[in-house]
């Protein structure tokens, strides 16, 4: 169990929150134009990294608002809570600017994934 800093309420027990899976998945603009495989990718396929994960949470037993959380799934360290409409934060040196990532591929934040930058990431701190 860990603590999460709700952007509105501050530090609270994890059990007050509900995890709602991978964040930054945007509904395709024109679903009818997608192939079945592309649609399946949107609906079902998920990033499942051992390392930094950008995910959605809701403070279900608190303010009931949605927000994003950057979290290390290898250690359950929470790295940064940020708003529901905000782009993912940057960790380490190798990452393209978040704005660019969001614009190019709404769902693709693979540059942030994986354990390669874990140390840099922990050094960066953020909310834990």
């Amino acid at each position, binding site marked *: *169990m*860990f603590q999460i800093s709700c952007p509105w309420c501050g530090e609270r*027990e*994890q*059990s007050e929150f*509900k*995890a709602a*899976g991978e964040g930054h998945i945007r509904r395709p603009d024109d679903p009818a134009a997608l192939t*079945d*495989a592309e*649609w*399946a*990718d949107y*609906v*079902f*396929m*998920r990033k*499942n*990294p*051992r390392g930094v*994960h950008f*995910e959605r949470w809701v403070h279900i037993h608190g303010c009931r608002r949605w927000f994003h959380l950057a*979290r290390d*799934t*290898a*250690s*359950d360290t929470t790295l940064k809570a940020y708003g529901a409409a905000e782009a993912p934060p940057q960790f380490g040196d190798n990452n393209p600017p978040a704005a660019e990532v969001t614009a190019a591929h709404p769902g693709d934040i693979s540059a942030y994934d*994986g354990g390669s930058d874990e140390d840099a990431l922990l050094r960066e701190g953020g909310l834990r």
Partner: protein
Amino acid sequence: MKRYSIFSLARNALTGHKDWHKVWRSPDPKPYYDAVIIGGGGHGLATAYYMAREHGLTNIAVIEKGWLGGGNTGRNTTIVRSNYLFDASAHLYEHALKLWEGLSAELNYNVMFSQRGVMNLAHDQHEARDLIRRTRANQLNGIDAEWLDRDAALAFCPVLNGDPGIRYPVYGSTLQRRAGTARHDAVAWGYARGADAMGVDIIQNCELTGFDFDQGRITGIRTTRGSIRTPKVGVVASGHSSLIADMAGIRLPLESHPLQALVSEPVKPIIDTVVMSNAVHAYVSQSDKGELVIGAGIDHHLSYTQRGGFDVVETTVAAVVELFPIFSRLRMMRQWGGIVDISPDASAIISRTPVDGLYFNCGWGTGGFKATPGSGHVFADLVANGRPNALCAPYTLERFSSGALVAEHGAAAVAH
């Protein structure tokens, strides 16, 4: 392989147990195998065993990053049953259950398969309707299933709380008498011993770190103990499957979560069946050592930590104590977690992939132990022959784009 028997037991007792042979070899990896299985859990070892025994493939290896059965195989609560609602699941799990019934004899290794019955409790009329429907579906599929009303359920398991005033009173229960439990480590060890005897190399402390491809085909793997050339790779890595799929550039519909279990101090025999409840998400059985084995639900966030949060334990224990007030004074001795690979429809993925020669067997999530023999059996066929047989055909990766899901989530009662 030296066979175990009453005579070998007596002989070794007389010689002070100094002459027991090694149960499997510890070979170094060879430069080439006809196929390599990634993951030395029950499913991976069963796969290798059936590849050798049924398909004559003996120049194969199983590589395991830790020790045999150190993943979910050695961490689960060992419930074995086949009373699933949908035909595809019923056939696959019943195939496994039939193999369980002959497994100790087949492997000449006691996997302690104990058909003590599994109860799935209903706590209200709506749940009862669903469960009765499931028993009927099971019977149509030739699977033993019974419905016990409240009195019959309480008579079958007298330690259950019969008080109608509790929040989730016992309303009735399904019972599969052929279901039960097995000894988890023994399953891994028995398959390992059987596979090793047929020439399969079982290589522990050897982690897969990457693949070699040539024009969309697998040509080899990289491991912490060097590179190995091979045309076929079967990945059976449960909670770590997505990490391996990443190495091959394949996306899987899996999310990895901790699933926890705990055991009490040992007590005299008190519960001679397995009780599961979907509504309160708790399940209990008693081990041969006398410990109560208690399973919880998953932690809802993604995590590879293999421990899980205390809030989940708290909820589970509260539910168990309400259902079994008699257990309320027991102390819990150990708690642990395993990382389970949850798929969107709560069914496994036993499938070819877009990469030629690369196969995945994953997505068993919280309930794959019971499938171990059946899963290994059909996956061996898939890897050996490159095409799915009728039992595993519904479990392709393509079902997520065709829409032909095997949606057991709500249908299977607790998914263990």
